[in-house]
């Protein structure tokens, strides 16, 4: 293998480049990204960066890394087309031949089809975050569409800076897609305490020059409206190249598409959940980087291992560090331990553990979930104390 091309220079794409070199790959390596500048971390954009404005701290690797490791970084370049038969990627008047292609195209912000949506600000890229920082220079009334991680992290920072904040969420509870009702409720109380106004089960229906109008008719006066209603995977390139796309680029448990010369990783990839086998797409640093490492090992070392990493997620909102280990389905049962740690169960099997400011339990859960199935009965027998599990 002499030529590997990676489309997408986010954290997953860069990790693929890093891991390929670490595994001993010596051929040509091209990393193509749509944004300007060096690859950077996204998670802090809605947290530390929004407060500090320190863009240098976001950089994943210094410029010297790319020279030293012979990674050809191609920035501000959007790929138009993948020619699978010719094994070439076309971008404008440039083309990049590959022996293996890695799709790390990530996601883009979802724009619900509501009137005035184009007036909204986004929080996905460094440029978006820079714009928000400029806008938040003076006291503002901020309306947020979406009560998920990004919307709530923004809300917490904006409140901390003294701005007025109102969040509208379509679902009846916060972060409904990813956490239990108990954790949703904890964060509802937290944000109310911070002084954020929450409208649950009442989606934004229109964005105007004066703010936003909710489905109920409630008008929220605002100087800025942030769109944080989720993302859509960038899977069009794969689809147009004839690869299967279903909520993302479909890959097998080796993270390989139906084309043996094309892998996909991170937020854009739909892969079989190692525990249940059901197709999942995760939006997390953990999945992106663990995917990248597995692909590098397979391509360079020939290690033919199924992907089996335990998912984990985090969110910082004011003084609450939310950590999730594992992956629960929306209907999974819930047990609340006396200290507030939430245990989720798919039938009798532990599927996830959600904690706030409890790193010990989070790490114990990650260890436990990496092993054989943990049953609800076994946990109940030891009062849900991982340390006491046999």
């Amino acid at each position: 293998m002499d030529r590997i091309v990676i489309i997408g220079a986010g954290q997953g794409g860069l990790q693929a480049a890093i891991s390929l070199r670490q595994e001993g790959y010596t051929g040509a390596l091209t990393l193509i990204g749509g944004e300007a500048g060096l690859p950077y971390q996204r998670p802090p954009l809605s947290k530390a960066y929004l407060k500090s404005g320190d863009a240098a701290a976001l950089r994943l690797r210094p410029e010297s890394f790319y020279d030293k490791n012979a990674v050809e970084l191609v920035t501000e370049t959007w790929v138009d087309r993948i020619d699978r038969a010719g094994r070439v990627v076309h971008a404008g008047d440039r083309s990049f031949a590959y022996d293996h292609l890695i799709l790390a195209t990530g996601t883009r912000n979802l724009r619900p089809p509501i009137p005035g949506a184009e007036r909204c600000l986004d929080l996905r890229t460094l440029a978006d975050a820079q714009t928000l920082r400029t806008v938040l220079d003076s006291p503002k009334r901020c309306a947020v569409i979406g009560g998920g991680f990004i919307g709530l992290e923004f809300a917490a920072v904006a409140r901390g800076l003294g701005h007025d904040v109102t969040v509208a969420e379509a679902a009846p509870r916060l972060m409904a897609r990813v956490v239990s009702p108990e954790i949703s409720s904890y964060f509802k109380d937290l944000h109310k305490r911070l002084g954020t106004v929450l409208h649950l089960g009442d989606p934004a229906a229109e964005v105007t020059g004066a703010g936003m109008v909710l489905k109920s008719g409630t008008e929220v006066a605002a100087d800025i409206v942030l769109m944080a209603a989720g993302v859509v995977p960038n899977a069009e390139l794969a689809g147009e190249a004839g690869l299967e796309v279903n909520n993302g680029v479909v890959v097998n448990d080796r993270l390989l598409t139906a084309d043996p010369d094309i892998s996909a990783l991170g937020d854009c990839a739909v892969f079989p959940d190692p525990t249940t086998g059901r197709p999942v797409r995760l939006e997390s640093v953990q999945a992106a980087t663990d995917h990248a490492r597995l692909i590098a090992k397979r391509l360079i070392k020939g290690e033919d291992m199924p992907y089996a990493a335990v998912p984990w997620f985090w969110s910082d909102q004011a003084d609450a560090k939310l950590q999730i280990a594992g992956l629960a389905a929306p209907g999974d049962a819930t047990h609340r331990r006396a200290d507030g740690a939430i245990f989720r169960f798919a039938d009798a099997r532990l599927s996830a553990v959600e904690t706030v400011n409890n790193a010990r339990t989070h790490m114990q859960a990650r260890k436990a979930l990496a092993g054989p199935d943990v049953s609800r009965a076994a946990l109940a027998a030891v009062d849900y104390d991982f340390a006491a599990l046999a």
Partner: protein
Amino acid sequence: MVKVTYIAADGTTTTVEGEAFSNVMQTALDNDVAGIVGECGGSMMCATCHCYVDEAWQGKTGARNDGEDDMLDCAAGEVKPNSRLSCQITLTPDLDGLVVHLPEAQY
């Protein structure tokens, strides 16, 4: 600038200049020092920037921060009394010359 020396598990020694008040993890990444991953970017959400503070420097780097013990519990390498998450060691000027040892694996 604050000088930091990283000694890898295989003995490879790298000395670099870090910016004052940066941290030991960021300085390693900025200078392309292998052996520190720093997956969560210093949010103390992972344990992939594990290091062992050289005995001569243990007094100056101080004790582990709140929550650091818990994350270290899940570090891939052996956890020793001088284990730290390198993202939690701020490069104050009095750490000029700091020496840290790196574990064999970070994940």
